[in-house]
């Protein structure tokens, strides 16, 4: 596995200028980082977004399978456009945002790393924690490394690199004890989640 990964990863490192492990911070003052979620039930489709994304990931281009870190979403930042629905969603029957203020994905490793059109795709293995329940999941993701682009983003105030990560996956709310009694014809058990986030690694 390592033998097949190394040439790809070395190419990634050389092509992007990343050689040593780099830590990317996903704190996002521009408000670009976000997660979308959709529950598509026969009688009703509920969709919303969350923009309270933060966290760090450490990527080693020479050893991408050892990528680690945590991406966190503030539960209270989940937003749907109907205020009553939002109140219910964040309430104790559903996400219980007061007791469980963070939704986290702790990345343990990457596998099946492939390069295509300057982007790396991989399966991210980690622990998804929601409403006090931890579950091991594997999700597909693409990673684009943008060397030197932090300067463009900050108007030259900071220099460094950017990493853009995109992923889409499905969760079951019943796996996390999110109002399992709710009728599934109105609120789907399956939650489609997609995430698009950019992290910065300033030059020291």
């Amino acid at each position, binding site marked *: 596995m390592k033998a097949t990964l190394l040439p790809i990863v070395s190419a990634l490192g050389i092509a992007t200028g990343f050689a040593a492990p780099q830590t990317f911070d996903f704190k996002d003052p521009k408000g670009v980082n*976000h997660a*979308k979620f959709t529950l598509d039930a026969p009688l009703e489709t509920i969709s919303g977004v969350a923009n309270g994304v933060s966290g760090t990931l450490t990527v080693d281009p020479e050893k991408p399978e050892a990528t680690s870190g945590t991406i966190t979403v503030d539960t209270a930042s989940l937003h749907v*456009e*109907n205020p009553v629905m939002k109140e219910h969603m964040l309430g104790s029957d559903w996400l219980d945002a007061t007791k469980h203020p963070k939704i986290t994905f702790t990345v343990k490793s990457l596998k099946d790393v492939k390069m295509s059109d300057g982007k790396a795709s991989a399966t991210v293995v980690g622990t998804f924690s929601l409403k006090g329940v931890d579950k091991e999941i594997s999700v597909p993701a693409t990673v684009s490394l943008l060397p030197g682009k932090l300067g463009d983003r900050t108007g030259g105030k900071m220099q460094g690199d*950017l990493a853009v990560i995109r992923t889409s996956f499905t969760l079951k709310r019943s796996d996390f004890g999110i109002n399992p009694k709710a009728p599934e014809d109105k609120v789907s058990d399956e939650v489609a989640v997609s995430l698009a986030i950019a992290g910065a690694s300033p030059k020291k």
Partner: protein
Amino acid sequence: MRLLLRSISVMLLVTAIAWWWKAGAHPGWTKTTDKVWKYDEITEISYPETVERFTPGVDFLASAAFASAILAGVSFFFGRKAGYPPLGANS
């Protein structure tokens, strides 16, 4: 009073339907915010920006219809204006 209540009832219902229709005839729940999608050219991420915007939904229509029905119902508690008795009523 009877006529006034019924007029308000009809006006309320018509105004609510017209407002809902003009706002895009949204078939879902009432929204108080909306998403405006923007594009970050550096990261190539399309991202939503939340803006305050009231969009009436079917619950808004139902509430207006309910209020309209209540007004129309209350109007029945007010009798007709006493008028002249019909011709020949006293004969």
